C-alpha cells in the first residue's frame, strides 16, 4: 500500500463489563467480572477496570479471580445486549468511513484516509467517534490513530481507558521503541520469555536486532516480527461490505503457561466458542464446519475439523463439536500452548431456505435454551445442567 494512510483503531473499554455497568447502576464503580462463577471452572471473559486493579484479566480462571478479589461481582454474559451494542457501534463508525472492519465484537479498524475534507482532521474525527459512542451506546472507548493498523492498535493500547493516542510515522522511534516487546502483535508469552532471556526487552531492541540473531532467536518468523517492531504493516482495511464476505471465523488464545489439563483447555474453549458464536450471530452466518487449532509446546501445530450435517450457530453444538476434536491424551502428555476454535464453510442466513418439519419443536428448544440461560444467570452454572455434561463429569 503506497501513500500516506490514516488508520484508526477503536477499542471499547472493558466492553462486556461496561455494558453490564451501563445496564445495571448497582454495578457501577464496582469490580465486575463477566464470565465464570467463583466456584466454577470457567474463565473470566471481561473484567471491569475496578476489577483489573486486582490483577484480574481476561482468560484468567474464575476461581483465581475470586481469590484476588472477594468483593468481585460475577455476572453472566448477556450476549444479546453486547451484540446489540456492537451493532450500534458499527453503525456509528460507518458514518465516518465505508472502510470499517469490526475485528471482534468490541474493536474495529477504520481507514479514514482522505476524509479530512468531509469530516475534519483525524483527531477531531476520533473525538467525535468517542462522543457518539458515549452518547448513543453509553460506554467509553479508546482510539489509536496511525499510518497503519499495527501502529493504530498499539496506540489505542497506550492510553486506556477513554484515551486517544496519535502515532505519526516519524515518531515510531520515540513512542513505540521504548514499549515492552510483548506489546507487539505476534509476541505471545512464550516468544516474550525467549526474547527477555536474550536481552530483548523493548520493541526497539527487537527492531534493531541484527538479522543473524533474529534468525537464531525466532527462526523464519523473526523477519516479520522485526518489521512489525519497526512499525511496518501494509494490511488494508477492507470495505465494510467486503469484510462481510468472510468465509471463516475463529478465535484463539495463547496460554500464559503450557497447560496439561484438558478441563482447563475445555473452559478456554467455552470462552472461545462463545466469541465465535457472537461473531456468527452478528454477521447472520451459520457454520457448516467446526474445527480447532492447537499448538504444542514444541510449536507443532495441528488443525482438525469436522463438517456438520446442517449449518449451525448453536453454541452447544459448536462447542461440543470442537471439544470432540481435542486430543485429550496428547494434552495430558505434551501440554498445549495455544488453542483456537474455528468455524468455516459459512452459510449466510439468507441462503438457508430449507424449511423444517418440526418447526414448533425447534421453537420450544430455543425457549428451553433461553430458560436455562436465565436460570444460570440468576443462580449460577450449577443450578441446571445438560445430562450429557453430568455423564462426562463422572468419567
Amino acid at each position, binding site marked *: 500500500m503506497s501513500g500516506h494512510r490514516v488508520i484508526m483503531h477503536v477499542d471499547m473499554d472493558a466492553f462486556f463489563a461496561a455494558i453490564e455497568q451501563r445496564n445495571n447502576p448497582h454495578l457501577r464503580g464496582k469490580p465486575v467480572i463477566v464470565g465464570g462463577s467463583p466456584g466454577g471452572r470457567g474463565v473470566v471473559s471481561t473484567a471491569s477496570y475496578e476489577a483489573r486493579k486486582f490483577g484480574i484479566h481476561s482468560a484468567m480462571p474464575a476461581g483465581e479471580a475470586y481469590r484476588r478479589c472477594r468483593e468481585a461481582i460475577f455476572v453472566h454474559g448477556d450476549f444479546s445486549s453486547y451484540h446489540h451494542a456492537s451493532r450500534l457501534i458499527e453503525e456509528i463508525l460507518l458514518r465516518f468511513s465505508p472502510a470499517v472492519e469490526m475485528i471482534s465484537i468490541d474493536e474495529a479498524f477504520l481507514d479514514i484516509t482522505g476524509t479530512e475534507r468531509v469530516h475534519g482532521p483525524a483527531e477531531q474525527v476520533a473525538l467525535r467517534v468517542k462522543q457518539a459512542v458515549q452518547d448513543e451506546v453509553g460506554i467509553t472507548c479508546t482510539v489509536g490513530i496511525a499510518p497503519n493498523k499495527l501502529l493504530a492498535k498499539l496506540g489505542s493500547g497506550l492510553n486506556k481507558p477513554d484515551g486517544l493516542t496519535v502515532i505519526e510515522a516519524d515518531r515510531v522511534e520515540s513512542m513505540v521503541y521504548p514499549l515492552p516487546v510483548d506489546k507487539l502483535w505476534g509476541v505471545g508469552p512464550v516468544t516474550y520469555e525467549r526474547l527477555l532471556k536474550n536481552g530483548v526487552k523493548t520493541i526497539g531492541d527487537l527492531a534493531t536486532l541484527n538479522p543473524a540473531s533474529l534468525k537464531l532467536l525466532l527462526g523464519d518468523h523473526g523477519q516479520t516480527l522485526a518489521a512489525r517492531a519497526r512499525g511496518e504493516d501494509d494490511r488494508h482495511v477492507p470495505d465494510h461490505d467486503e469484510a462481510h464476505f468472510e468465509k471463516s471465523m475463529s478465535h484463539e488464545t495463547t496460554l500464559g503457561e503450557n497447560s496439561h489439563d484438558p478441563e482447563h483447555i475445555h473452559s478456554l474453549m467455552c470462552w472461545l466458542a462463545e466469541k465465535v458464536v457472537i461473531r456468527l450471530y452478528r454477521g447472520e452466518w451459520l457454520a457448516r464446519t467446526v474445527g480447532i487449532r492447537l499448538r504444542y509446546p514444541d510449536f507443532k501445530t495441528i488443525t482438525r475439523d469436522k463438517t*456438520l*450435517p*446442517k449449518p449451525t450457530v*448453536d453454541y*452447544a*453444538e459448536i462447542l*461440543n463439536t470442537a471439544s470432540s476434536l481435542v486430543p485429550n491424551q496428547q494434552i495430558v502428555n505434551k501440554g498445549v500452548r495455544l488453542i483456537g476454535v474455528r468455524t468455516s464453510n459459512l*452459510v449466510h442466513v*439468507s*441462503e438457508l*431456505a*430449507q*424449511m*423444517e*418439519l*418440526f418447526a414448533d*419443536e425447534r421453537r420450544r428448544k430455543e425457549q428451553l435454551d433461553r430458560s436455562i440461560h436465565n436460570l444460570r444467570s440468576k443462580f449460577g452454572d450449577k443450578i441446571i445442567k445438560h445430562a450429557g455434561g453430568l455423564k462426562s463429569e463422572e468419567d
Partner: protein
Amino acid sequence: MKFSLTTDKIQSALSAVMSAVPTKSTLPILGNILMEADGKLLKLSATDLEISITTSLETKITKKGSVAIPAKTFADIINALPQTEIEIESTNNRIEMRFGTGDYKISGMSADEFPKLPEYDSKKEIRIPANVVRSLIAKTSYSVSTDETRPALNGILWQTNGERMRMVATDGHRLSRAEADNTVLQGLHGDVIVPPRAFNLISKLASESINEVGVVFGDSTLVFICGNNTISTRIIEGPYPNTEQVIPKNNDKNLIVPKTLLMETLRRVSILSNSLTRQVKFSISKNTLELSATNVDLGGEAMEKLPCQYDSDDLEIGYNAQYILDILKQLDGDEVRFALSSSTAAAVVTAVDDGADYLCLVMPLRLAD
C-alpha cells in the same frame, strides 16, 4: 486352537463380520476379530460397541480354543489367497496360517480382552419375512438424520406393536413412513429406534436366499439372526418425535406425474441447481409441471415442461431435488402423487397405486423473491 477349511468359506464369513470392525477406534482390541472354535463350529465376531456381528460356520476342528486376531491384516491375507484348503492354528495368541507351500504367522491378542458380546435367549426368537423387512428398510433409511444433536433421529423408528408393522425415519426436512402387514410381532413389543447401520447390514446379509429373519427384543439391544449371521445392535434411546402430527391431513391439491419421466427430468434440471440447496422450482399449472433451476456460480439456467394431472390453483414450490429423487427411487408404480396445500407446507408424496403403505413428506425450500 486348530481347524481347517476352504478359503472361500472363510472369505465369505470374514466379509460379513468386517462390516462391524470400526475403521478407527480408541480401543485397539476393536480392530480385532474374535475367533472361537469349539465342537464343529467356528465363530467369527466383530464389534464397534454399537453393533456386533457373529458369523458361524461348520468346519473341521481338531483343537478347540479362541483368539483375537487383527482384522485388517487377517482379512488382507485371507482375501489374497486362491481357492485352496487352509489350516489355521493359534498357540499363545500367535496365529499361523498354512496352505499349499505357504506359511504365514501374525500375532493376535487374548480372546479374554475382547468385549463381551450381547447374549440373547434363542427361545425368544421370532421369525419375520425377510422381504418385508428389507423393503421397509430401503423405503425409510435414506431419510435418517445424521445430525448428532438429535440422537433419536439418527435411527429408524420401528413400530411392531400394532396391526401394521411400521418404519419411520426423518431428518427434520423430510420423512418416510413405510408399513406392512404385521401378524407375527403384533402385541409383543413396543417401539424401538434402530441405528440404520444395523438395518442396512440386515439388508446386506439377509440375501435373496434367506426367507426369514429372526429377531429377539432385549431391553437395550436388538438381535437379528440372518442365516449364519447374528447381528446385535444398541437400541437408540427415545423419545422419537411425534411424527403423526406433522403429516398434513388436508392437502387437497393433487399433482399426478409419470414417475420415470419426472425422475429423469429432475436429474437433468438439477445439474444446474444451486450446489448447496439443490433447489428446483416446481411451477404447477393446469396439466403442466414446469421444472426450473438456476446456478449463479455456473451462470446456469435450466427449464423443462412435462405433462401432469393438476386441476387446482397455480402453485410455485421449491424443493431440494435430491430429496424428491430419493423418494422417487423407492416408490412403486408408474405414477406419483404430490398432495399439496401451499408453497410453504409439506408435500405428501405417495405412489398413485398403493398410497397407504408408503408415505413420504418433504418440506419445500423457501423461494427467494
